[in-house]
């Protein structure tokens, strides 16, 4: 039997440009500083007061081919809850965990997400994938959003059998997705350096 094929072509991507914060994080003072239109920028808060799971910070650094941090970038993340389920129709106003985060660069030059460590999600082979976070990066000079994943340094065993990590042939390149664990002031933080080019270029996916 023949499979259905697409009837329409996807709208082609265009760069988010240098002023992405105007539309997607207008309240951020370093960038657009547009106050009074949206009460709160989308994706700023992922957690509710009763969200189950280990509170963590995720820090992502984006470094371009000149070794310069991409300060105009915007990053979104999408992750499962502590039980390994993706949240549908979360109501952040009611304090639900949303699984969705969006950040521009903060004053320290970091893209910082306050979240929980995700649980394990079942992969296409029926086995549980290692805990991970989906990462999407847009910026000036990026023609189509870059998709990658963040894994956790302290999940050695789970990472070794992960459905996606095992598709990366080079062990050295596999390492580009693994965030290092650091002790923050009051909680653990996981730090991932995303290199857009060069010897340490991050693995980006065609999903």
């Amino acid at each position: 039997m023949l499979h259905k094929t697409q009837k329409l072509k996807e709208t082609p991507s265009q760069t988010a440009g240098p002023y992405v914060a105007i539309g997607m994080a207008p309240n951020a003072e370093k960038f657009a500083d547009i106050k009074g239109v949206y009460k709160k920028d989308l994706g700023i808060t992922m957690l509710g007061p009763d969200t189950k799971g280990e509170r963590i910070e995720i820090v992502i650094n984006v470094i371009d081919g000149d070794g310069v941090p991409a300060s105009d970038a915007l990053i979104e993340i999408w992750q499962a809850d502590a039980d390994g389920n993706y949240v549908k129709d979360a109501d952040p106003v009611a304090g639900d965990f949303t699984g969705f985060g969006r950040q521009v660069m903060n004053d320290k030059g970091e893209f910082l997400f306050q979240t929980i460590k995700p649980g394990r999600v079942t992969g296409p082979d029926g086995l549980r994938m290692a805990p991970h976070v989906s990462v999407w990066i847009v910026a000036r000079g990026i023609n189509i959003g870059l998709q990658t994943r963040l894994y956790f340094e302290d999940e050695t065993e789970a990472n070794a059998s992960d459905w996606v990590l095992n598709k990366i042939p080079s062990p050295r390149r596999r390492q580009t997705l693994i965030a290092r664990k650091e002790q923050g002031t009051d909680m653990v933080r996981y730090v991932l350096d995303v290199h857009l080019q060069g010897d340490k270029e991050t693995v980006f996916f065609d999903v």
Partner: protein
Amino acid sequence: MSDVLLPSGEGPLFHRDRDWHPPALTPQYKSTTFRAPRHPLLAMGQTATEFTGPTFGHSKLGELDGDLIRNYSQDGSDAMGQRIIVYGQVLDENARAVPNTLVEVWQANAAGRYRHKREGYLAPLDPNFGGCGRVLTDENGFYSFRTIKPGAYPWPNNGNDWRPAHIHFSIFGDAFAQRLISQMYFEGDPMIWQCPIVGTVPDKSAIDQLIARLDRENTVHYDALAYRFDIVLRGRRSTMFENKLEGN
């Protein structure tokens, strides 16, 4: 056995046609030279992580979020410029409407100036224009917002490059792998065909998809012109179900 489509929110998406999108490296748009990854993208297939995604309810949106003429008004006056309605339908590659999905937009003001701290163009800011808006599509996938037509502006790339008038769009769908950012241009604008960023899209018919059509039928009488801009997101692959109707 019938070949039916999965209900929205479930199942893998069609493979993305990367030749229809701009490649990562397009030297005529200089910023790509130090930001385009040099390794090919790694095909990984899709898991629940990719074919689920965040959805947003009406509780997040304010009354004026879709009215850029008024939503940043400081003194009660409207933003300056040619008043327009931009509307259209969000569809997937199966030509099915995408309901209740978030569409975010941002743009320069009528003079071609962005409200952003790093923007240095000499054209003036409009005190009553912020430049951001967002709306949800209705049950048939339609969205609309009201704004002013943005101006063209020069930018530092090659010596004398100008951006055609455009509005930036961000669209979610219901899968994180559908996530899309693009730009909308205006029918009849000669600047479109001189722009290095438009030119990153290889195929002329793909560029045509980015051009909103002037729609005289939906003009708001003695108020605003209308432009129609339909958007297509990735669709979900069909699958085999036994005696199961779509949506059941």
